C-alpha cells in the first residue's frame, strides 16, 4: 500500500520545496537570496536548476506566489496554504524526530 503523502506534498527534511518554504516563512526572497539562505541554515547547496524546479512546483500548487518587481530578480512569498503546508510538514518531521530520539535514548543510557 502506498504511504500517505505528507502535508502539501513535502517529503524529506532536505527536500528543496520544504527548504524554500522554510526560507520564505521569514519573508519574501528572490532566487539567489533563497539559495544563500538555504545554504546558511540547512547546509544544502541548491543550484539554479533545482531551485527553480522546486519554485515551479510550489507555485503550481499555490504554496508560494511571485511578487511584483521592476527588477529581473523576482521575489516570492509564502501563501496561507504554503504556511499551513509547512506547519503540517514540520509537525510530521517533529513527530518522526522525537520518536527517533526517544528510541535512541535507552541505547545511550546503556552505554
Amino acid at each position, binding site marked *: 500500500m502506498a504511504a500517505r*503523502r505528507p*502535508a*502539501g506534498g513535502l517529503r524529506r527534511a532536505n527536500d528543496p520545496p520544504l527548504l524554500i518554504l522554510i526560507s520564505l516563512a521569514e519573508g519574501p526572497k*528572490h*532566487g*539567489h537570496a533563497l*539559495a544563500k539562505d538555504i545554504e546558511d541554515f540547512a547546509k544544502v547547496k541548491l*543550484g*539554479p*536548476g*533545482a*531551485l*527553480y*524546479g522546486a*519554485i*515551479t512546483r510550489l507555485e503550481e500548487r*499555490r504554496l508560494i506566489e511571485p511578487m511584483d518587481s521592476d*527588477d*529581473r*530578480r*523576482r521575489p516570492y512569498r509564502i*501563501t*496561507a*496554504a*504554503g*504556511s*499551513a*503546508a509547512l506547519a*503540517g510538514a514540520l509537525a510530521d518531521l517533529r513527530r518522526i524526530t522525537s520518536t527517533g530520539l526517544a528510541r535512541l535514548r535507552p541505547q545511550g543510557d546503556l552505554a
Partner: protein
Amino acid sequence: MTAPEGRDPALSRLLRWYPRAWRERYGDEFLATVEDVLNGGAPTARLRLSVAWAGLRERGHQVRREADVTTWSLKGPIVAFIFADFPLSLRASPPPAREWLATGALDAELGFAALGGGAILASALLAAPVFGRFLRAGGWPRIRRRVGWAAVATVAAGGALAWTVLASAAETFDRLSGDYALGIVVTGLLLAVAFGLWTRTAISTARHLGLSRRIRAAEKVLVAVGAAALYTVMSAGLCFNAAIQPGVPALLLCIAGIPAFAFCATVNLRRAVRKGRRLWSAPGRA
C-alpha cells in the same frame, strides 16, 4: 533561440533545455539567478549539466501534464466516430439472437454520452462566473490565440466529419472505397487535433482564472466522470459492433477493449477523487 539584448549568449543557451512556456514564464529571473551565482564568472561544466538535467526534468513534467491532452485527443475522435455512425447503426439489422445486445448498446451509447456531456458541461459552468470576470478584466487577449486555433481545427474537423456522415449514408459497408478509408483517417487526425487543442485551451485558461480549491476539486471529479462515461460509450460501441458483425475479430475486440476501457475509467476516476479530496481538504483559502 537568440539572447536578449545585453545578455550573455552562453547563459541564454542554458535555457534551451527548458520547454518554451517555462522559458517565457521563468527564463529571465532564472538567468538573473544564474548570473548572481556565477558572480561574473563563466558557467562551469557542473552548472551546465545540472541545468540541462533540470530542464529535461521540466520537459518530462510538461509531458506528464500533457497526458490529459493526449488522452482526450484519442477519446474524442472515437466517440465522435461512434456518433457520426449513429444513423447507419440505427438502420443496421443484427441477427435476432443478438438484437437485445445491439439495442442495449445503442441505448448505453446515448445514455452515457448524455452523462459524460452533462458532467463536462457542469464542470465548465462551475468556472463560468470566474471566467466571466476574467473576460471583463481584459483576459481575452491571453487566450485568444489558443481559442482561435482550436476553433479553426474544429471547423476543419467538423467539415471532415460531415463528409464521412454523408459518405456513409450514400454507400453501404460493402462498397466503401479507398478514398473513404483515407477520408476516415484524415477526419480522425483532424478530430484528434481539435480535441487536443480544446483540452489544452481549457487547461491553459483554467490556470489564468485562479479558481478556488473547492471548484478545482469538483472540476477534477466531474471531468473524470465525463471521461469514464465516454470510456463506457466506447465499450458500448464495441458491444454494438460485436452484435451486428458476428465473428471472432469483433468478439476479440470486445473482449480486449472493454476491460481496457474499464481499467482506464477506474484509474482515472480514482486518481481524480484522490486529488479532489486532497484539494478539498487542503489548508488555506477554500
